[in-house]
């Protein structure tokens, strides 16, 4: 296929949004309060909207009559290239907000860089998405502070969540072959360059939230290469059920 790197590159970005959107969607009707429930599904909707834009573009590049639905619903686990962070389960609300915050900080930096892409479609998706992602970050960052700086119990739960999720952050800055090729062409983002700014911003919020920076230097990676955590299989079983059971169904 022509443009193989571009195709793989777009799928990687799209998968992050799809999988996190799916996780947040699972919370629909289960949020701790009505407002947080609605916020979670709003953010999910933004992410799924963004991934639809990416998948439509990737499907066009792929040709072979592929559609966005084929790409979102009919690939195998090893073919999804999302980072491990976004597939982690919704343990509790603090964990969900911690996961969201750690991704949002990265996501906004990523989108801000993607805006400069030489690829017009990617730049346009970023232009649209950047406004949405700034809202997400404000929301998740506020909750990290509120829970971290809240009661002893909320502080302990938030700390535990950050300690656990921290191990998935370093993978955000790994460069796959497609990442490298696209960055070299001025189409993709060199995410390895975002690392310092990311940890600086995250650390500031963590300190403001009365939380401790995790000391662990042990990081887990693999999602970008298609090697996922155990949770991913269960997530996909839910996500793909309708298309697998009723092939070619349409909403």
């Amino acid at each position, binding site marked *: 296929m022509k443009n193989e790197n571009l195709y793989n590159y777009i799928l990687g970005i799209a998968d992050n949004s799809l999988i996190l959107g799916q996780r947040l969607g699972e919370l629909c009707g289960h949020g701790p309060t009505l*407002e*947080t429930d*609605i*916020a979670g599904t*709003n*953010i999910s*909707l*933004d*992410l*799924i*909207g*963004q991934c*639809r*834009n990416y998948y439509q573009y990737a499907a066009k590049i792929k040709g072979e009559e592929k559609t966005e639905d084929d790409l979102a619903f009919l690939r195998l686990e090893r073919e999804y290239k999302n980072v491990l962070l976004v597939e982690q389960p919704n343990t509790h609300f603090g964990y969900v907000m911690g996961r969201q915050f750690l991704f949002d900080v990265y996501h906004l930096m990523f989108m801000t860089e993607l805006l400069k892409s030489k690829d*017009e*479609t990617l*730049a*346009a*998706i970023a*232009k*649209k*998405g950047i*406004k*949405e992602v700034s*809202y997400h970050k*404000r*929301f998740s960052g506020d909750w990290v502070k509120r829970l971290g700086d809240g009661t002893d119990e909320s502080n302990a739960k938030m700390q535990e969540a950050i300690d656990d999720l921290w191990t998935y952050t370093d993978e955000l800055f790994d460069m796959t072959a497609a990442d490298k090729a696209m960055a070299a062409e001025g189409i993709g983002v060199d995410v390895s360059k975002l690392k310092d700014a990311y940890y600086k911003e995250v650390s500031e919020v963590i300190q403001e939230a009365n939380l401790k920076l995790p000391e662990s230097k042990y990081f887990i990676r693999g999602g970008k290469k298609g090697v996922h955590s155990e949770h991913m299989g269960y997530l996909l079983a839910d996500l793909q059920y309708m298309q697998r059971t009723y092939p070619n169904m349409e909403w």
Partner: protein
Amino acid sequence: MTLTQTANIDTHLIPILEQVSDPEIPVLTVLDLGVIREAVEINDVIHIKLTPTYSGCPAMDVIGDDLEKAFSEIGKKVTIELVLAPAWSTDWISEVGLKKMEEYGIARPLSETADKEVLLGNKKLVKCTNCGSTNTHLVSQFGSTACKALFKCDACQEPFDYFKCLK
């Protein structure tokens, strides 16, 4: 910036476009909302370019179907293309649209700077659509749809939606 200045729309199509409204804010037509970027008739086919308000706005599919239906009633075929650039802005909502929105119970988007102030809870600038007081507070940055935030009036105690500024 008003819609007529930025969108390329054949004038004879306007009466039909005016019949299609936003499914989530039914008082607004697609023209009031500014989501139609182009509508031109070429060889009996209407070519429409539509831009989403938010990436995941579910109203877009419905609006597309409604446009097809409205034009099929006068025997015209329609092609719809979703365009992302330039990104939709709340500046594209017409003044008439903003007034209709307020009457419907949704506070109009403020300027970009004012929007940040209210969504961060620093200033009370959003006017209650029920009693007009600005003694209001933000309940949630995310409201009943992607484009709205939820507010409550501290004067009359009524909750109401605020259309978030998007530039």
